[in-house]
């Protein structure tokens, strides 16, 4: 037997804009099966964001749970904003993770760990296939391509600040560069990323 990724993707059903809109409508109508479907689709990506920031599986799971609770409670607002379910969930997860990082004073521990990990590589890690059968790889690949096209020093600042949740001062300390340099690198990086990613509208090509 030979299986291909493409066929598996078809079976699960692509997460197109129309499918997401349908999921959103069903969630607004309090359809619990829609919640089950959403949890199945979105959890690996939300968990990835929370784990990369918190480095703690239990805490990351709590954050993901909180995000789904928030979405379930505010699903009408999500519909009115018109930004899409997945971006909303990712935003909530990231913000909650940052809140936890800041409130639990784990920074010193994290800084030490990140400093060790940063030695030897200044770029965003290469993409490795990590999760089988999961819609969203198309977007993941596009985002990674955009990150890879950044100059190494900008990519390192984005990784630490955006994906690891460090403040700019902490990034400066970790990379041993002036705060102003960090700000400049991040500013240039985000201008470029906005240009490259603003066209992404859907979970599927």
């Amino acid at each position, binding site marked *: *037997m*030979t*299986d*291909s*990724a493409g*066929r*598996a*993707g078809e*079976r699960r059903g692509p997460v197109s804009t129309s499918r997401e809109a349908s999921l959103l409508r069903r969630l607004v109508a*309090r*359809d*619990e*099966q829609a*919640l*089950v479907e959403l*949890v199945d689709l979105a*959890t*690996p*990506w939300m*968990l*990835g964001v929370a*784990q*990369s920031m918190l480095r703690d599986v239990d805490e*990351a*799971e709590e954050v*993901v*749970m909180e995000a*789904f*609770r928030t979405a*379930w409670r505010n699903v009408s607002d999500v519909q009115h904003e018109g930004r*899409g379910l997945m971006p909303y969930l*990712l*935003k909530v997860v*990231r*913000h909650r993770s940052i809140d936890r990082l800041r409130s639990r004073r784990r920074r010193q521990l994290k800084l030490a760990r990140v400093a060790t990990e940063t030695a030897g590589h200044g770029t*965003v*890690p290469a993409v*490795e*296939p*990590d*999760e*089988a*059968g*999961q819609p969203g*790889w198309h*977007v*993941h690949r596009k*985002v990674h391509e955009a990150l890879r096209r950044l100059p190494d020093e900008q990519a390192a600042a984005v990784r630490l*600040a*955006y*994906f690891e949740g460090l*403040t*700019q*001062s902490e990034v400066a300390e970790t990379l041993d560069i002036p705060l102003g340099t960090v700000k400049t690198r*991040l500013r240039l990086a*985000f201008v470029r*990323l*906005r240009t490259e*990613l603003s066209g*992404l509208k859907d979970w599927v090509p």
Partner: protein
Amino acid sequence: MTAHDWFDEHLTEYAMRLLDDKDTATFEAHLSSCAGCRDEIERVERDLAWLPMGAEPAAPRPGLERRIVHGVLGGVPAHASRWWLPALLAAGLLLAVGGWWSGSRRVAAEEAELAAARAELAALQDTLSVIRGAGRVLQASVEMNGAHGGMLIFADERTHRWNVVVHGLPPAPPTGRYQFWFICEEGMVRGREVDMPGARPASFTTGMPTVPCTVKGAALSVEPMDATSGPPQGSMLAHLML
């Protein structure tokens, strides 16, 4: 430089939550009176809405999705599905007459239980459909620290999904975790982490990798706790070729 330039400069950092607490507070105070900044922040957020997808996805531990659904519906009592809404309303009316307080608490608890049962049922139906549709069953023996177990794969060739059962293994060592792999022509592709909580077998249903590859088999290994990406680094316990 005008007073507003500082806000223009730091707008993206604010939108991305990169400012420290003091600058964040300054920015928030400004936002209440500046519609221009509010609009621009919305544009930045919209343009970079998918950026978090740059993080590597993480395989949920077995049962997490069910716990999430249960937690969401249990934490905030879920409304009933529409087909039994009239029954619920009638029940609510009766309860209001007969003792609304204790009755409403019971309904909320039952709703949460029903939602959890539905999620459980959906998961079971999904698993059963793969097992019943399996065109092939593959088995490999696994030995770990003197314990003899095995890995079974029910391969549904119609839907290209597998139900994987791992049994007879002790819990993973404190410094490692069990990892399921797809053996592809192009190399090893990471599947799900396998949680062995105790004596019970672990099972999960998986689709094929969505990265382009041709699947030739599967493997199970014990990986170091911090090896969350890349090729296998730990001890290989079992190989199964299709």
